[in-house]
C-alpha cells in the first residue's frame, strides 16, 4: 500500500507542547516517508516513555475514547484484543471505545516480552496496573467535578454517574495528562518473560484493580478486533509498507545454510552477530561476484559489504531476477554437516563444558536439571522396568509469509518497518549493531505480519538486511525474504536424542525415572523439569541434559524443548501402564496424587472423548488400516531454566497443563498415519478471552499434528536442503484433524500462557495411539511413512 493510504490508516501519537505540560496535540507523525526532520523532531517534546506513568500506557481522548499503548505485537493469537479487554474492564468502557496504538519504539512503553506465551499475562499485568490506576484518578476527578464522593459513583461506557449527574472521561481528562504514577510492586527483571512470579503490574483482582467477581468483559468470549480488516484485505501487514523512492532488495547467499560449527564471528546475545553471519553466506565465504551477470536488468545494482552480497532494484521482480541471476562463487563450507543419517551420532558427541544457552551465562554441559532419591536403587526395587531411546528432528518456524522489512537509513535517523518478534526493540538493536550506529537512534515500527511462532527466527535478519542495503544505497530499501531464505536460514528448533529408563513396583507405583537428553541448545532452554516426569510422584528421578556441538543456530519454536521430553516421557509412562496391565489414564491418576490442575485436564479430556478404560492395544487387528487412541500430557515450561533438586509439581512454579487424546488411523502398508480427531484440554488459570484460547488449542493441535507426522529440517553433508513446502512438507487441509478444544476457566487463579501446551502433549498422544492401533512402539518423530513402516517391520522381525 502506498504512503498516502497508510497515512489514513495510521496512528497518531500524543505530543506535548514544550513547557505546556498538559495539552495533548494529536500529531500524525507516522506517515511513512514524512520528511526526516518531522519524524526525528516533532514540534514540542515527545512524550517521555516512563515505565511508571499512566500516560505512557493510555490516553483518554476528548471524544471519550481510549488509546492503549503496549509493546505486545499481535501475532495471530488475539493478544492485542485481550489487552484491550483488560483495559476496558478496568476502566469500564466498551470495547468499541478503546483501540490500540501502533507499536512504535518511539512512542510505546515496554510492557513485557511476548515470548513463552506471556504476552497476555505479563503484558496484561502492565495494562491492568495502568488502567486501574487511571480509573482511580478518573473517579477522583469525577468526584470533584460532580461533588459526589467517589464511593457513590458508578461508571458505564466511560460515563461517570452520581448524585443524578453525569460526566464523561473525555470531559474529565480528554486532552490532558494524568500525571499519575503507577505503584510499582517489584522491579522488572530484564528477562521478565521468564519471571512469572515477578510480574511488575497488577494481577487480576489485586487492588486497586477491579475484583474478579465484578468482571463483565474479561473471561467471556470476545471477537478479535482485527479480524474484519483481515478478511476484507484492509489490514496493513508489514509486507504492505512502501516508502517513496524505495528500492527493492534481496539477499544473495548459498541455497540453505551450512554448518556454523566453526563460524568466523562470536555469537552475541540472541544472535546479533550470527544474524550478520547468516545474512553473509552462513558458513561459506564469498570467493567472487560477477556483477556483469545482471547488467541486462535495468536499474539492478549489487551491494557488497564484507561477505554480505545483496542486490537492489527499483522494481521488485527485477530485484528477484537479479538476485537469482547474479553469479557468485562461494567457498566450500568451513565445516561439514553430518547428513540426516548421522544426526544421532552428532548429537551424542555432546561435550562437557559447552554452555547450555548463549544469552544466559551459567550452566554448562552436562546439565543436571533435577535429582531426587537414587535412580539406580529405584530401578533395582522395581518389579518391571522399561527403557528406550527417542529421537526428534530439527524443525523450522516457517511463517506462511516470509519475513519482510523496510529500512530507511537516513542522516536524520534510521527507521525500520517490519513485524517485530516477541522481543520488543530487539531488531532495532540488531540493526544498530549491523550498521554501526547507536541503538537509541533506530526507530522500530511494527505491523502485523505472518505469524512465526517463536523468537528469533528470521525476524531480526530481514530488517538487518534491509538496513545494510539502505545504508549502502542511501535510499529506503524493502527486503522480502524468498521462501528459501526463510527456511534455509532460519534458526531451527533443536533436534534431540533421549534415553529413558523407568521402573514400576508391584502396586503400580513408579519407582524410578532416569532421563538423559542430547541436544544442541544455544538460545533454547534446557529440558523441562515438568515434562520429564515432574507431573508424577516419583521417589527416584534424575533428569540430565547434554549439550552437543553447534550445527545450526537454534531458537525457540512454539513449545521449545518440550516435544522431546513429552514425546519420550509420556510414552514411557504408557509403557509402564501397559506392563502392569493398567488403563493408561488410571495408571497416571494413581501416580499423581494431589496434582489437581493436571488431574483436571486429564479428566476433562477423558470425559470429552468418552474414554473407555482398559489396557492399550487390546483390540489389535490384522487389517491393513487400523485405528487407535492415545493420551499424552504436556506443557510449556515457562520456568525453562529452572533447575535444582527435588523438582516436581509440588515445588514447581505453576504452568498451564495440557492433556490430549488423539484418535488415529494407520495404514500399515503405506505407513501413513492420519490423525482423525484431537481432544485437547488446557487449564491456563484465569482465561481472559476463552474464544481465543480455544483458537490456540485448535491451532496447536493442527500444528502439532504437522510437526509430529511430517515436519523435519533436512540437510546433506554441506547444506540445509529444506527450502520450500515440498522439501519441508507442512500438514495440508485434507489431512487436518477435527479438534475438540476444552478450555478450563479458573476465575480464582492467575492467568497463564496458553499458546503452546497441546503441541507437546499431542506428540506422545499420537505415538500412544499408534501403539494402541498396532501394538508397536514408535519412538521417532516425525512419524512419517518410512519411519512407521520401519517400526512395523522391526517389530515383525523381533516377533519371529
Amino acid at each position, binding site marked *: 500500500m502506498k504512503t498516502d493510504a497508510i497515512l489514513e490508516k495510521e496512528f497518531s501519537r500524543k505530543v506535548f507542547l514544550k513547557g505546556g505540560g498538559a495539552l495533548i496535540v494529536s500529531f500524525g507523525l507516522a506517515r511513512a516517508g514524512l520528511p526526516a526532520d518531522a519524524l526525528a523532531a516533532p514540534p514540542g517534546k515527545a512524550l517521555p516513555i516512563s515505565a511508571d506513568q499512566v500516560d505512557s500506557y493510555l490516553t483518554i481522548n476528548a471524544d471519550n475514547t481510549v488509546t492503549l499503548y503496549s509493546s505486545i505485537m499481535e501475532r*495471530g493469537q*488475539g493478544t492485542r484484543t485481550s489487552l484491550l479487554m483488560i483495559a476496558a474492564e478496568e476502566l469500564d468502557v466498551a470495547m468499541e471505545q478503546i483501540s490500540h496504538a501502533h507499536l512504535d519504539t518511539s512512542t510505546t512503553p515496554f510492557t513485557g516480552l511476548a515470548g513463552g506465551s506471556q504476552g497476555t499475562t505479563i503484558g496484561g499485568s502492565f495494562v491492568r496496573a495502568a488502567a486501574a490506576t487511571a480509573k482511580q484518578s478518573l473517579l477522583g476527578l469525577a468526584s470533584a467535578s460532580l461533588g459526589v464522593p467517589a464511593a457513590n459513583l458508578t461508571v458505564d461506557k466511560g460515563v461517570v454517574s452520581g448524585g443524578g449527574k453525569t460526566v464523561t472521561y473525555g470531559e474529565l481528562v480528554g486532552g490532558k495528562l494524568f500525571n499519575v504514577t503507577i505503584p510499582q510492586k517489584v522491579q522488572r527483571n530484564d528477562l521478565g518473560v521468564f519471571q512469572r512470579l515477578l510480574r511488575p503490574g497488577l494481577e487480576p483482582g489485586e487492588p486497586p484493580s477491579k475484583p474478579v467477581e465484578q468482571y463483565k468483559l474479561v473471561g467471556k468470549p470476545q471477537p478479535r478486533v482485527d479480524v*474484519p480488516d483481515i478478511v*476484507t484485505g484492509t489490514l496493513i501487514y508489514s509486507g504492505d509498507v512502501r516508502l517513496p523512492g524505495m528500492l527493492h532488495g534481496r539477499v544473495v547467499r548459498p541455497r540453505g545454510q551450512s554448518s556454523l560449527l566453526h563460524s568466523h564471528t562470536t555469537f552475541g546475545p540472541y544472535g546479533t552477530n550470527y544474524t550478520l553471519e547468516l545474512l553473509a553466506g552462513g558458513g561459506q565465504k564469498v570467493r567472487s561476484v560477477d556483477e556483469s551477470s545482471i547488467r541486462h536488468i535495468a536499474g539492478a545494482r549489487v551491494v557488497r559489504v564484507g561477505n554480505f552480497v545483496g542486490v537492489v532494484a527499483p522494481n*521488485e521482480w527485477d530485484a*528477484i531476477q537479479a538476485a537469482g541471476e547474479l553469479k557468485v562463487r562461494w567457498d566450500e563450507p568451513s565445516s561439514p554437516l553430518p547428513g540426516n543419517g548421522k544426526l544421532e551420532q552428532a548429537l551424542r558427541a555432546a561435550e562437557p563444558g559447552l554452555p547450555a544457552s548463549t544469552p544466559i551465562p551459567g550452566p554448562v554441559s552436562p546439565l543436571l536439571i533435577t535429582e531426587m532419591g537414587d535412580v539406580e536403587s529405584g530401578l533395582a526395587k522395581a518389579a518391571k522396568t522399561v527403557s528406550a531411546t527417542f529421537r526428534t528432528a530439527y524443525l523450522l518456524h516457517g511463517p506462511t509469509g516470509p519475513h519482510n522489512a523496510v529500512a530507511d537509513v537516513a542522516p536524520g535517523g534510521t527507521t525500520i518497518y517490519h513485524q517485530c518478534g516477541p522481543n520488543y526493540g530487539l531488531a532495532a538493536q540488531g540493526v544498530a549493531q549491523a550498521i554501526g550506529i547507536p541503538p537509541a537512534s533506530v526507530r522500530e515500527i511494527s505491523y502485523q505480519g505472518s*505469524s512465526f511462532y517463536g523468537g528469533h527466527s528470521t525476524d531480526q535478519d530481514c530488517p538487518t538486511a534491509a538496513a545494510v542495503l539502505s545504508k549502502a544505497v542511501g535510499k529506503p530499501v524493502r527486503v522480502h525474504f*524468498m521462501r528459501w531464505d526463510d527456511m534455509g536460514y532460519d534458526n531451527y528448533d533443536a533436534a534431540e536424542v533421549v534415553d529413558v529408563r523407568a521402573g514400576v513396583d508391584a502396586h503400580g507405583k513408579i519407582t524410578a525415572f532416569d532421563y538423559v537428553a542430547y541436544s544442541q541448545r544455544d538460545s533454547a532452554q534446557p529440558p523441562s523439569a515438568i515434562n520429564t516426569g515432574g507431573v508424577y510422584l516419583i521417589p527416584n528421578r534424575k533428569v540430565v541434559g547434554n549439550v552437543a556441538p553447534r550445527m545450526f543456530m537454534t531458537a525457540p519454536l512454539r513449545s521449545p524443548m518440550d516435544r522431546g521430553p513429552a514425546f519420550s516421557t509420556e510414552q514411557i509412562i504408557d509403557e509402564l501402564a501397559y506392563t502392569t496391565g493398567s488403563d493408561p489414564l488410571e495408571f497416571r491418576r494413581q501416580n499423581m496424587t494431589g496434582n489437581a490442575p493436571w488431574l483436571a485436564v486429564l479428566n476433562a479430556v477423558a470425559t470429552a472423548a468418552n474414554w473407555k478404560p482398559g489396557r492399550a492395544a487390546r483390540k489389535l487387528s490384522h487389517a491393513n488400516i487400523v485405528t487407535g487412541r492415545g493420551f499424552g500430557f504436556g506443557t510449556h515450561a515457562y520456568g525453562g531454566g529452572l533447575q535444582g533438586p527435588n523438582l516436581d509439581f509440588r515445588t514447581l512454579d505453576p504452568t498451564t497443563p495440557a492433556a490430549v487424546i488423539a484418535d488415529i488411523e494407520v495404514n500399515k502398508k503405506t505407513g501413513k498415519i492420519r490423525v482423525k480427531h484431537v481432544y485437547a484440554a488446557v487449564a491456563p488459570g484465569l482465561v481472559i478471552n476463552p474464544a481465543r484460547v480455544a483458537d490456540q488449542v485448535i491451532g496447536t493441535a493442527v500444528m502439532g499434528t504437522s510437526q509430529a507426522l511430517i515436519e523435519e529440517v533436512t540437510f546433506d553433508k554441506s547444506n540445509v536442503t529444506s527450502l520450500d513446502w515440498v522439501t519441508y512438507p507442512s500438514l495440508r*487441509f485434507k489431512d487436518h484433524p477435527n479438534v475438540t478444544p476444552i478450555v478450563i476457566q479458573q476465575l480464582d487463579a492467575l492467568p497463564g500462557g496458553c499458546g503452546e501446551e497441546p503441541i507437546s502433549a499431542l506428540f506422545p498422544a499420537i505415538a500412544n495411539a499408534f501403539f494402541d492401533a498396532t501394538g508397536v512402539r514408535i519412538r521417532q518423530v516425525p512419524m512419517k511413512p518410512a519411519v512407521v513402516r520401519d517400526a512395523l517391520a522391526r517389530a515383525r522381525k523381533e516377533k519371529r
Partner: protein
Amino acid sequence: MATRLNIRVNGLVHRVPANRETPLLYVLRNELDLIGPRFGCGLAQCGACSVLLDGKEIRSCVTPVAAVSGRSITTLEGLPALWASKHGRASSAAPALHPLQQAWIDVGVPQCGYCQSGMLIQAADLLSTNKNPTEDEIRAAMNGHLCRCGTYPKILTAIKQAAAVMAKKT
C-alpha cells in the same frame, strides 16, 4: 522489457507498466496497491497469492501478467462486488461483505490471517460451482492452501456456514 498492458481487476481496467513475464502478484501489489493477495512462496505451493481469473482460482505468483490480459481478475478486495454482480446488483450497490467474508468474521477464522485471502478466494471458487459441498469436498478443494496457524477446522466450519447463507439467497 517494460511495456504497458491493460488488465481488468475487480471490474476496472488498468493500464499498468510491466514486463510481460512479471508475475501478476507484483503488478497487483506494487502497481495497483491491492494487498489482499500476498507473497508466500513464489512457487505456487501455498496459495497466499491466489486470485480469481474468470472466476477460477489461480496462483498470481507464477502467472505472467501478459497471460491475463483481456480476462477478468478478482482479488479479495473484489469479492463483495463479485457477489453483488451474481445477484444482478450493480457493484456500487455491493454489500460490504461477501457471505464468505461474513462467515469468516462470525466464525472467527483468522489467526495471523496471512493465508486467509487465498483461502477466501479458493472458497469462493468452490462455492461458485458446488453450492453445498460435503466435508470431504471442502477438504479436497482447499488442499492446495497452506495455513501454518492451523485454522483449517474453522475454515471448514465457515465455508459450510457461508454455503448455507448463500443457498438461501439464490
